[in-house]
């Protein structure tokens, strides 16, 4: 089974974000990055499927500037077999249709049995690239998948619905699945894995120029910190212990909790 895993590099979850001067995006300069959380689970699922079904190949594909190499190298160290890096410096404002188009051009000749990716990115949060990519590749898809059974000819996937409900879907293969975070424990890269990764192929490809330059269907005109919907009383003024003491008092006198 050949599985392609699409992985995105995003701003670190704990990064303090600042808005750029033109108020059109965040200040990227001093930002630290990490792999998009659900994409990490997509990779883990691909590795497990390969192990379970006796081999095949796991190919990682990532779109972005040279810094995304760290995501790719980490994926190779965890056990992916090779990688495709679609090199593009300016992808922050790329809409999901354009991103899917670029990715589809990069992977269509691979003829994968499965394409996996995370259910949404932690930066733009469109939650669309995977589904649009499935449409462009002519593949059936399922989103928010938390279990994959590939033992038969087709696929059975368990999808998360809202409010604690679930549903199994039987579907044909090849297919594209978007994976929910937390469906398994992600393995660590071993020293052996890290050494082995150095010999693995990372193919650099240029993004399809037409797909990249097509007019965006949506354009960000301004970014800003959300307006507060509540007047928050901040307690302690930086002193956490003082804040805690004040809070206990407020909970008794104002909120009347006890």
């Amino acid at each position, binding site marked *: 089974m050949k599985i392609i895993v699409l992985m995105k590099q995003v701003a670190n979850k704990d990064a303090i974000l600042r808005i750029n001067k033109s108020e059109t995006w965040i200040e990227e300069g001093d930002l630290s990055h990490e792999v998009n959380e659900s994409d990490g689970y997509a990779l883990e699922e691909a590795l497990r499927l390969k192990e379970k079904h006796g081999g095949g190949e796991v190919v990682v594909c990532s779109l972005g500037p040279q810094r995304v190499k760290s995501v790719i190298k980490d994926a190779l160290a965890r056990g992916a077999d090779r990688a495709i890096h679609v090199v593009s410096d300016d992808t922050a404002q790329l809409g999901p249709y354009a991103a899917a188009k670029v990715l589809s051009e990069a992977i269509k000749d691979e003829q994968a049995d499965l394409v996996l990716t995370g259910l949404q990115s932690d930066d733009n949060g469109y939650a669309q690239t995977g589904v649009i990519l499935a449409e462009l590749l002519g593949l059936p898809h399922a989103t928010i998948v938390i279990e994959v059974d590939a033992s038969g000819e087709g696929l059975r996937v368990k999808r998360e619905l809202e409010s604690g409900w679930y*549903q199994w879907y039987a579907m044909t293969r090849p297919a594209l699945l978007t994976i929910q975070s937390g469906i398994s424990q992600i393995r660590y890269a071993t020293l052996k894995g890290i050494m082995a990764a150095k010999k693995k192929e990372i193919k650099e490809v240029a993004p399809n120029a037409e797909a990249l330059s097509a007019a965006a269907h949506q354009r960000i005109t301004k970014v800003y910190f959300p307006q507060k919907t509540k007047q928050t009383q901040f307690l302690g003024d930086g002193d956490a212990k003082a804040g*805690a003491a004040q809070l206990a008092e407020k909970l008794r006198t104002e909120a009347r909790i006890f």
Partner: protein
Amino acid sequence: MPNGILVFAEHRGGAFNKTSFEAVAAAQQLGASLGQPVSAVVLGTDAALASQVAAYKLDKVVSVEHPKLADYTPDGYADAMERAVRALDPQFVIMPHTYLVRDYAPKLAARFGKDLISDCVRASVSDGAVTFSRRIFQGKIDADVVANGEPPVFATFQSGAYRADQAERGGEAAAVESLPVEVGEVRMQPEEPFQEVKQAVDLTKADTIIAIGRGIKGQEHIALAQQLADLLGGEIAASRPICDAGWLPIDRQIGSSGQTVTPKLYIALGISGAIQHLVGMKNASTIVAVNKDPEAPIFDIADYGIVGDLFEVIPVLTEEIKKLKG
């Protein structure tokens, strides 16, 4: 020439989702600002369901019908909606940002060579132009977005962005129009939806909830929060990453994929406040947030906030409450 606003009303097995009527409210407000008629579209096998939506103040309700639409599938819904949108030629297609819409609507938009303006929290109209606002970076930042190119514009609205009870009802029922459509090959077969286990804990009945997030750092620290919960007679709960890690069972998860709660007191410890968490707890009467990051979105909805280390806050808070309780 494209005209009007088409709103997608979602149902599962005939039960309409509340967010569908929130989308109706969003579409009506947009329609009023733009001076454009609003129609609803319902997918199914016959027109019986459409009449449930016809009570709202709408130009008409279009019942898009095919036997393959009895159960939801992304292939079936994308095919049917593509034909409905082409036939009705609207300027805007408005949908609730539910798991079902997330599953098929990007495919629908792709048939028109575009993407969705997804998960919007607001829309405003100025000089006839619409600006959509959406949350990015897990709720930390808002982005104003405008649509480019030819209509239709596809937009989805976050649960709770508009209120279902603000959806205006009409004097008389809106006309229901049947639109039989062709549906091509459906490559997936759904089985019956189910609930994993009977929820052992019903957090919806708790008056006080102490919720922990990534900031708790390790399973061994949960006892600290548990002490506080015991002292206040409350329940312990968590954001998704904590349950994903197996530190607390999934029936203690708050948010879109877990439980939705409205306790008198909700204390969020080390929870940044991603949208998926906020939808599950934002209607609590009193919300307390403790987080190291002063920009954490949880503070946007908190009544009381402490910017600091929860490991300093919890012991002092527990002691002080003990003292005050006497």
